[in-house]
């Protein structure tokens, strides 16, 4: 379990995240939703130590992340950000191999190679594993980065808007893979999402943020309610049941 305790972040005088307390349960997909500027990405960055919190702490399985060595933490928690700019040219396989760095420090043994193979096959990238990343489409690139995180083999996988710039087909593909990671491999996935319908259909729990504070935190069916969404987004959003999925019809509200 990841426990977030009284976490705050100031940018200048603006309080971006304010005294956030959240528990994230193991073996589930937890989605962070909320309007732009609510502090979702900042919160995720602090949980994954990409950003130092001003106050508060993050406990991972009851250990304070500040007390863990960065290499040990990298075997427990992985994070994938929205933009992955780099100025080296890598093939998919080389990128995925980097996922084994916390274990191998760059010298891959047989077991590392096996994990890399598995991750590549899991993301269905086997036939293009020697293609360069800059030759791939956005969806393939995103899958390659997720494969790296799978090879990293952490209990907790954090993703910051992984569906950005992806079309419907690839978005669904990515969400299905994340669902499989949780259901088949027992991972815990925490994801920042903009599209509340993806959050509704794929996540177990939803944490809603607004102005740096947690306004709702609960199982998906409790959050995907017109009254709760009104509080989060200031919009009247009708909910339709379709094939056992709660779909938010927000397009003309």
């Amino acid at each position: 379990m990841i426990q977030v305790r009284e976490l705050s972040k100031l940018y200048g005088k603006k309080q971006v995240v304010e005294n956030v307390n959240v528990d994230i349960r193991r073996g589930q997909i937890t989605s962070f939703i909320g309007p732009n500027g609510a502090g979702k990405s900042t919160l995720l960055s602090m949980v994954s130590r990409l950003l130092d919190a001003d106050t508060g702490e993050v406990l991972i399985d009851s250990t304070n992340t500040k007390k863990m060595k960065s290499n040990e933490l990298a075997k427990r928690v992985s994070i994938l950000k929205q933009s992955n700019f780099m100025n080296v040219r890598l093939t998919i396989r080389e990128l995925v191999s980097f996922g084994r760095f916390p274990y191998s420090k760059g010298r891959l043994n047989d077991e590392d190679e096996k994990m890399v193979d598995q991750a590549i096959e899991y993301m269905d990238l086997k036939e293009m594993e020697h293609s360069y990343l800059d030759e791939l489409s956005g969806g393939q690139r995103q899958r390659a980065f997720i494969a790296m995180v799978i090879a990293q083999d952490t209990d907790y996988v954090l993703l910051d808007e992984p569906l950005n710039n992806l079309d419907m087909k690839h978005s669904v593909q990515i969400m299905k893979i994340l669902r499989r990671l949780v259901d088949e491999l027992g991972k815990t996935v925490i994801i920042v999402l903009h599209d509340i319908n993806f959050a509704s259909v794929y996540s177990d729990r939803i944490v809603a943020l607004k102005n740096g504070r947690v306004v709702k935190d609960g199982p998906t069916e409790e959050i995907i309610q017109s009254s709760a969404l009104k509080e989060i987004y200031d919009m009247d959003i009708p909910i339709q049941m379709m094939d056992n999925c709660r779909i938010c019809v927000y397009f003309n509200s």
Partner: protein
Amino acid sequence: MRDLHKMLILAGLALAACGVYLFHDLNGSFDYALPRRGVKVFAMVLTGIAIAYATVVFQTITHNRILTPSIMGLDSLYMLLQTLLIFFLGSDHISIMNRQVNFILSIAAMVVFALLFYHFLFKKGNQPIYFLLLIGIIFGTFFGSISTFLQVLIDPNEFQIVQDQMFASFNNVNSDLVWLSLVIIVLLIAFAWRHNASLDVLSLGRDTALNLGVNYDSLVRYMLILSAVLIAIATALVGPITFFGLIVANLSYQFFRSYKHSVLLTGSIVISIIALVGGQWVVERLFTFNTTLSVIINFIGGVYFIYLLLRESRAK
């Protein structure tokens, strides 16, 4: 294994360059010319190693392939120190006349400056690296302006001595200093070599590096200080030559197309040895000392720099 192949070819070229420089037109002067040439080759190899290593590492840290460590203002500080010494003490003072004293003074000034600079910056928390570079540019310009001001005031004969120091030269390198530099450079790089895999991860960007458990802040600090010390040694040994690193680092990226720092660093080191020793030979034999190596380096480096800028802007 293609990398190994290329590396062997380059190493062969480097050896050939050293061989030609040492033995061409020697006329049996084994006692007089050979030891003198030997010291020069030695100095060039050391400078090449220091500059190549410092530049590649610096570019990885800053995620920028058209920067050189000279942006930290160390070259300008070196020039300021030389100008100050001549301005206040005169060109016949021991700090200018004696190469050893000058060497120690220069290294001490540059290393102390770099350490103080980083100390104050890092004390204020984790500044973005570009902030640090901007401060470096300001310091460099500041040092440069003071030097120019003082150079205008001094006696023209004294200015000749300053001008000598402005260009890198291998012609009067002191052999004791070469040995001292060798020990320091080899020790520093041997200790740093184990960080090569972490540097590979660093080139994926800060976020990915942190995600993969690299201790980003401390690694960046360590590498910045290391490259500053290497630049200080090379500059104190032969004069300001940092621009040279830009050429060899980029040639190494182009030639090897690898992300592995063990390959890129070795490659750029070997390329810089070829360029320095080969270039010096051309200066001595073809131009018969009518020009200096650093003039040629700055000319070729400048042209290559413009090419890199054009290519980068087209790639966007």
